[in-house]
């Protein structure tokens, strides 16, 4: 395979803005699309692009990611040459540190980069959902002899504080990259997909007193120094899932009559470790439409415009609409779940209502939760007959006994009284 490429996927960051969904996992490990995790897209893109040497840099809450990746079998990455390796911070004889940032994570893995003897290093942000062939990108990068080629996309929304805006000249040469500008210049943003010529990256990483951040301390200085940094536009579906709204919106896209991201694409399948579950079953008075339904789901109620992950049960007379329900959650008879994201293993009691009333922004995090969604953390229990207003967060591990009242007003943040592990 020419030229030799090493892929490094950044998957170690903590996503504060995902609240309970990001407590026990990083954004790349977030379940997505009924059976996948977000990182499956990057990994599947790699193997479809013929890239089989992959390192995944992990640090924050890596357990679910490690369990998911395993030896990489689902992606045919259990290989003699190359394959996938999880790169965790480790203790050294001299100086030991956690990864202090994305650039520091690469610095601490300098030996991995050196040992790979790759001509180019493809650095991917792990929290992206996109289908992309990296082959043409690398070919263009090679052709133009660039030190760095960065993929750009049109910003999917106006949240400028989440993106780095790129301006390039008529030849695709990047002039500037502005992170989180108050007033963005244009709409092209960095997609979090970079190809570095290996020797240029290594030189930068070897610099003394290098700062910890890949964009601020490596890429922006390269642009400022006039190195050949090129932009390569991508015009297919691209989303990052770093916030509750972004995750929900990227998920709902899949339910459109003609989704911009087609999971049923036989030419570009997304791989993931499959679970041994029975096929989904609709029983009794159950009815389902405009939804994605995974194996092991059991529907006896009504499901509309929703995504059900493996093993979700919807009881008789229950209604689930405009919602994302993760693995093995039980929605008991006559409960209603409306515009909610429910994490794994939750239990919604008989006749309970999740998501009702006015959309008053969350009192503690108005910036993160004001669109009317209700978020239930892993294993949360909602007592029978209780009612939960919109923009409410029910933290992971909340038990029935944590409900002092049966009616939780909109914009609340309900926490478990006792801190519980796992």
């Amino acid at each position, binding site marked *: 395979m020419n030229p030799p490429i090493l892929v490094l996927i950044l998957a170690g960051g903590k996503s504060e803005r995902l609240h309970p969904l990001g407590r026990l996992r990083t954004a790349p490990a977030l379940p997505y699309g009924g059976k996948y995790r977000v990182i499956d897209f990057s990994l599947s893109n790699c193997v479809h692009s013929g890239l089989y040497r992959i390192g995944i840099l992990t640090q924050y809450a890596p357990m679910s990611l490690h369990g998911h990746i395993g030896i990489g079998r689902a992606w045919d990455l259990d290989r003699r040459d190359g394959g996938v390796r999880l790169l965790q911070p480790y203790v050294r004889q001299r100086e030991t540190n956690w990864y202090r940032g994305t650039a520091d994570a690469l610095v601490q893995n300098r030996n991995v980069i050196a040992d790979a003897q790759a001509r180019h290093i493809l650095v991917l942000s792990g929290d992206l959902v996109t289908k992309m062939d990296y082959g043409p990108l690398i070919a263009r990068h090679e052709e133009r002899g660039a030190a760095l080629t960065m993929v750009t996309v049109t910003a999917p929304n106006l949240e400028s504080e989440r993106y780095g805006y790129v301006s390039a000249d008529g030849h695709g040469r990047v002039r500037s990259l502005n992170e989180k500008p108050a007033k963005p210049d244009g709409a092209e943003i960095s997609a979090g997909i970079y190809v570095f010529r290996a020797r240029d990256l290594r030189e930068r990483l070897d610099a003394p007193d290098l700062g910890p951040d890949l964009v601020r301390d490596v890429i922006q200085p390269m642009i400022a120094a006039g190195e050949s940094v090129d932009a390569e536009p991508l015009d297919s579906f691209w989303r990052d899932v770093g916030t509750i709204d972004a995750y929900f919106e990227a998920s709902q896209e899949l339910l459109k009559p003609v989704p911009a991201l087609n999971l*049923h694409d036989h030419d570009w399948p997304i791989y993931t470790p499959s679970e*041994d579950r*029975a*096929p989904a079953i*609709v029983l009794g008075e159950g*009815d*389902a439409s*405009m939804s994605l*339904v995974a*194996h092991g789901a059991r529907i006896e109620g009504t499901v509309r415009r929703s995504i059900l992950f493996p093993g979700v049960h919807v009881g008789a007379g229950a209604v689930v609409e405009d919602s994302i329900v993760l693995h093995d959650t039980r929605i008991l008879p006559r409960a209603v779940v409306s515009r909610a994201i429910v994490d794994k293993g939750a239990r919604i009691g008989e006749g309970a209502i999740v998501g009702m009333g006015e959309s008053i922004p969350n009192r503690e995090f108005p910036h993160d939760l004001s669109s009317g969604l209700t978020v239930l953390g892993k294993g949360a229990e909602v007592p029978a007959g209780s009612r939960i207003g919109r923009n409410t967060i029910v933290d992971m591990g909340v038990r029935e006994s944590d409900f002092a009242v049966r009616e939780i007003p909109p914009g609340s943040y309900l926490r478990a009284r006792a801190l519980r592990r796992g």
Partner: protein
Amino acid sequence: MSHVSYAMILAGGLGSRLCLLSEKRAKPAVPFGGKYRIIDFTLSNAVNSGIFDIGILTQYRPLSLRDHIGIGRPWDLDRKRGGVELLQPFQGWLENDWYRGTADAVWQNWSRIDERDAEHVVVLSGDHVYRMDYRPMIEAHLERGADATVAVAEVPLEQASQFGVVRTDAAGWITGFLEKPKNPPSGRISMGVYVFRCAALRQELWKDAERDTPHDFGRNILPALVDGGRVLSYSFPGYWQDIGTLDSYYQANLDLLSCDPPFPLEDSRWPIFTPSTENPPARLGPRASVRSSIVTHGTIVNGTVERSVLFPGVVVEEGAVVRDSIVMGESWIGPSATVDRAIFDKRVHVGRGAVVGHGEATSPNRGCPEHLFQGLTIVGKATRIPEGTAIGRNARIAPDLVEEDFPSGGVPTGEVLERA
């Protein structure tokens, strides 16, 4: 338990009563329940019971079975010690014939048992749907010092004549074994699940090999062992379904759809393993209505689906109706088409507005009236039904037909359509 660790699964037979479904595949390889093949139940029972050393005896059309089993990974049977092995007929110094029957198949592979120094061996059939822990049965077999132990299920008396009926004494020893009797004395029948003491089995297989018999476990080996007086019965009270006929195949699939199914596919304590296909979750479109049905990964439904089982990759287009049917992988039901009481093999293509299962079931199938009389219409693999065509009931449509093979007036009830 350590000395009963090897199982042989009989998977060689030709399932003629399954009509088209088993024409090109062995019966254990017939798809079932949305994502499984029938042999998955026996294989999963074995590994869930701690048996990880398995030989599968194949003869008739083993290719789809071989592809399905592969190296046994879904069952954790890709192992350094044990694992799974397909035992096809072979030529050797003494062996030079196809398997002449189930008993002969085991006899020709006796070296597999010898080289394990096994004292006991489990012999299973590969064409039943059930969930069973073999361990208590093995324990009973060892404790009672039986030559053979036979798992026994209770079926309605009128069905018993299709099976081997057992008579037992008060202590559970089998005193009589009648293979497919005309007038069954009871509904207690052999499930085709056996544990044998190897020395006893070897003696009977050897004797039988020299004789001119059907070389069949039920007809020859078990009656001979029963004469020795050391064959134990082991009652199994759970769900057990033989997939011998189209009717029982259809019924067993529909059993899965009842509100309180007698046989739930999902049971985390006793999972049924199968190779998973790389498919996204089932996608139900804006106009979809899915009721009392199984929808597998990779299906796309934009029409109406009722009381049906859809296998991976089935597409039901807008305005189409699929009712009381079993539709295997990657079939396409075109817009406004109707499918009613039908069994489709894989990759059947139903053109826009076509009707499968039209009118009344007034006459049985011309070609196989004894198997196709209950109103089901069966369509073979990869056949393409032209737009607007009406196909009656009890019809049998051959595989691989193209639009031009269909008469312009449609296919009447009870008809057999073969390539022109």
